[in-house]
């Protein structure tokens, strides 16, 4: 028993709702974590992952209660401890790293001081010693120039740096266990990869046990030794990381793995229909309604844990033997369906020499002739063909959203020309004719923010209909609403719901329906799937592809996830600091030669494969503004030619004529190719 560090036995947590009904959040959860082991906890949103993480800190959300079971932390029963004892354990022995690092730091206090506070809370030592420890911690989390960084306020740090500070704070109490609740969600791929490497190193160096909560299987594959898969408040599979990714035994594990878009495969993956039920509401297996292996026994009898191997590999499924024998890798290839649609020759949107800047010179700037800072987006020339899906790829701050907002007229460009058919798109939305507004529609990243919480779905869909088709009668609009909902594969009865009564995927469908209500020619999609679960993401991508086929709509698709882009795009534009690095078809972009920046991005992508290791650059800090001259990527480029790249703007290099693949780099194409193939 000595090698078990955390022992969770039959833990059930629930709360009573307003009508006095008992709602389970966790049901009979049993887990063990050994010292120094990293357990990955995976599942869709609403499966109870965070509740379990918080329960391990001895914390329950108000209103919920422990219905049974226990959590033992190195032999101590967490629920039997007094508040005092819990306080001494938290931070000192177990530390939690939350999702949004920026919000968990005090904004008005220098980060160094916040870490010193955390150190002194757990150990009674002098200020000088604490300060030395603080600097030590900051260099341990690999923040450059700890002395300088410790004097900064949280808002002066980038998202990745903030997350590093939070990790340093968590390590301040020298905890024996770290609980990480989606700590890298919302960070750029490169930053995320670096943070994960840091966490891996810390675990091996300090022997800290970790529980890593995430919905991203790529991340889980990279950090965990063992993976527990959660569904509707239950653990359905518990296995070593290699086994669960190589031979998943639960149909849910398979479904999740199948629904992830891959870098190496074009086309849209299979989606998992439906959503998790409220735990404890189904008599049999909770996954049965969504399972392709389900038989009668699944809907009547709940499955018990079965041992597959002594690793240990446990699974809660009636049919796991059948699941394991069905070849998984074969299926994976089969489920990816290529997107077929027609791309016309004539352009939908043409952008030439567009320059966009947020800087507005004030009176004093103009009088003193202060040099204007470099533009956010500059020298942007691009033709989007009718019916094609063009993806804009880049890290945050690369100007993707700025370009899309300019096309939709929410921002105005400083110079250049944007045209749509015969219309000028350089004017802001207030001055555009209504029919032009109708033809260019926007879908946002987060449906929670883009749908008005006080409107029903009917009212939400009514707005574009009323605005663009004023002649429609009330009954016609009602019919259109139902038709639109059916086109996004929602039931007509959803008309009467409020956004708060729908899941994330359903809300995003409504947002898509709202955009298509206008019967647009061009739809601008701003990270439309990044706030959704993988299982839902595949379904939304599939829906977008279907809608495109109906009217040959043009998509401009913003994404930072390269695998998603691979799944849906025809052509890709790689952007860095508002400058185009590389333009080409998906196949051209996803095979060498790469622009050095594209190579960096590709290297940082986490593949759902425990053996894959991201290729990272030694120092990779995001920049806030582009350099004044030369190549935009010069400061981070591993292949930077010292004098040339810093001073001269790189030339375009074409592979197949002016309209085809092009790359903007000083290094000749063949040299890049030779370098990258090896």
């Amino acid at each position, binding site marked *: 028993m000595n090698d078990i560090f955390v022992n969770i036995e039959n833990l059930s947590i629930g709360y009573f709702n307003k009508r006095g009904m008992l709602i389970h959040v966790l049901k009979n959860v049993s887990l063990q974590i050994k010292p120094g082991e990293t357990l990955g906890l995976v599942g869709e949103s609403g499966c109870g992952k965070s509740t379990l993480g918080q329960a391990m800190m001895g914390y329950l959300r108000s209103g919920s209660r422990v219905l049974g079971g226990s959590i033992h932390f190195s032999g101590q029963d967490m629920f039997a401890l007094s508040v005092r004892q819990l306080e001494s354990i938290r931070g000192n022995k177990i530390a939690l790293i939350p999702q949004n690092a920026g919000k968990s730091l005090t904004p008005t206090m220098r980060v160094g001081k916040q870490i010193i506070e955390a150190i002194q809370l757990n150990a009674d030592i002098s200020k000088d010693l604490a300060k030395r420890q603080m600097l030590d911690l900051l260099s341990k989390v690999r923040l450059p120039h700890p002395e300088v960084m410790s004097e900064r306020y949280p808002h002066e740090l980038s998202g990745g740096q903030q997350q590093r500070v939070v990790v340093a704070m968590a390590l301040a109490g020298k905890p024996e266990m770290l609980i990480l609740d989606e700590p890298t969600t919302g960070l750029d791929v490169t930053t995320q990869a670096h943070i994960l490497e840091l966490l891996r190193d810390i675990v091996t160096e300090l022997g800290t046990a970790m529980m890593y909560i995430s919905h991203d299987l790529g991340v889980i594959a990279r950090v965990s030794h063992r993976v527990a898969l959660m569904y509707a408040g239950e653990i359905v599979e518990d296995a070593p990381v290699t086994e669960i990714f190589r031979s998943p035994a639960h149909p849910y594990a398979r479904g999740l793995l199948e629904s992830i878009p891959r870098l190496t495969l074009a086309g849209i993956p299979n989606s998992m229909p439906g959503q998790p039920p409220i735990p404890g509401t189904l008599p049999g297996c909770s996954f049965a309604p969504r399972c392709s292996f389900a038989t009668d026994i699944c809907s009547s009898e709940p499955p018990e844990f079965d041992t597959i191997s002594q690793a240990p590999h446990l699974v809660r499924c009636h049919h796991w033997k059948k699941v394991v024998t069905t070849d998984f890798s074969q299926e994976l290839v089969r489920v990816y369906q290529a997107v077929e649609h027609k791309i016309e020759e004539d352009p939908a949107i043409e952008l030439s020499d567009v320059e966009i800047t947020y800087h507005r010179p004030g009176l004093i700037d103009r009088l003193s002739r202060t040099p204007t800072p470099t533009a956010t987006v500059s020298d942007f020339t691009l033709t989007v063909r009718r019916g094609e899906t063009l993806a804009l790829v880049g890290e945050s701050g690369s100007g993707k959203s700025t370009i899309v907002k300019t096309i939709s007229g929410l921002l105005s460009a400083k110079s250049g020309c944007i045209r749509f058919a015969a219309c000028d798109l350089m004017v802001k939305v207030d001055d555009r004719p209504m029919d032009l507004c109708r033809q260019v529609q*926007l879908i946002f990243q987060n449906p929670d*923010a883009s*749908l008005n919480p006080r*409107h029903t779905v009917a009212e939400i869909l009514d*707005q574009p209909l009323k*605005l663009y088709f004023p002649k429609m009668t009330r009954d016609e609009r009602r019919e259109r609403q139902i038709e639109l909902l059916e086109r996004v594969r*929602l039931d007509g009865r959803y008309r009467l719901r409020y956004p*708060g009564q729908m899941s994330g995927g359903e809300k995003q469908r409504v947002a898509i329906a709202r955009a298509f209500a206008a019967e647009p020619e061009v739809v601008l999609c701003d990270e439309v799937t990044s706030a959704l679960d993988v299982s839902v993401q595949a379904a939304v991508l599939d829906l977008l592809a279907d809608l495109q086929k109906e009217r040959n709509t043009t998509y401009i698709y913003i994404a930072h996830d390269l695998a998603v882009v691979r799944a849906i795009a025809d052509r890709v534009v790689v952007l860095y600091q508002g400058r185009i690095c590389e333009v080409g078809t998906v196949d051209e972009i996803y095979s060498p030669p790469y622009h050095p920046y594209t190579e960096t991005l590709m290297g940082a992508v986490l593949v759902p494969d425990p053996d894959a290791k991201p290729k990272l650059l030694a120092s990779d800090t995001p920049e806030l503004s582009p350099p004044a001259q030369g190549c935009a990527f010069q400061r981070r480029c591993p292949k930077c030619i010292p004098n040339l790249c810093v001073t001269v703007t790189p030339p375009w290099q074409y592979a197949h004529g002016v309209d085809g693949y092009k790359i903007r780099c000083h290094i000749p194409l063949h040299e890049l190719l030779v370098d990258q193939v090896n």
Partner: protein
Amino acid sequence: MAITAQVAEQPAIIKSRSPLAETWDNLRRSSAGMIGLSLIVIHLIIALTSPYWVPYDPLEMNAKIANQTPSLEHLMGTDKLGRDVFSRSMVGGRVSLVVTILATIIAVTWGGLTGILLGFLGGRADEICMRFVDAFLSIPWLLILLLIVSILGTEMWVQIFTFGFTYGVSTIRIARAATLDHVTNDYILAARARGEHKWTIVTRELLPNVLDVLLVDGAMNWSWMLLGFTSLSFLGFGVPPPTPDWGLMIAQNRQILAIQPWAVFGPVIMLSTLIIGINLFADAFAKALGLDRSQGAPV
């Protein structure tokens, strides 16, 4: 199409409930809120029906029975002109209720819409208007009320508009602050990108989200206005005598406080029960709307 079928099975679980029904449900659970609401309703009923059932004519003077302490004939005694205090107290809220209720509606409407518009527009227009609002709010309210009423007279409609305007200014601030929480949301951006008219965004997108704040602010404003109106009456700028009015009654009878305290207690009890009622209701109403909690998805 498998997905459509999947979804179609589920809606039975969640019944669509309007926010109004949800709020009423929450409000009913709060005993303080229900006490407050009952006090308000009782006052409204008294104000509407009292002329028909009060035992004496509130205007009838009788010098023979002046300054009487409470008895079975006169429940709250009589004032120094021999008028029945109970009857006067019951009828005495009619004018102030009419004035303050109408003024509250005006204040919430004009202040709310102006505040939302300023919050939405931002920039220079917002900056300039808000400085005027700040300047206006820095003058003591009683002074402003006295100033306007002494210039424009004491007719009822003047008072309604004076109160509506004055108290609406503070609503501008509240509405603007509440709007700023919502104006950065993507649904406002989505509406702008659609090409919606500014006024449509204010009334259709922003107003429903700010309405809860406005309603609670309106309820609080109502109680402040009652105090304000009573103060004006007390100072002689409200209802002209001999009309029964709480503020006027207190002013007239304060000299006989030692002999016949009920001539002052009567209107004070009426006024304070109404104001306590409004405050209890406003507090519970704010809680029922979820203003003091984070707004999560209904479970």
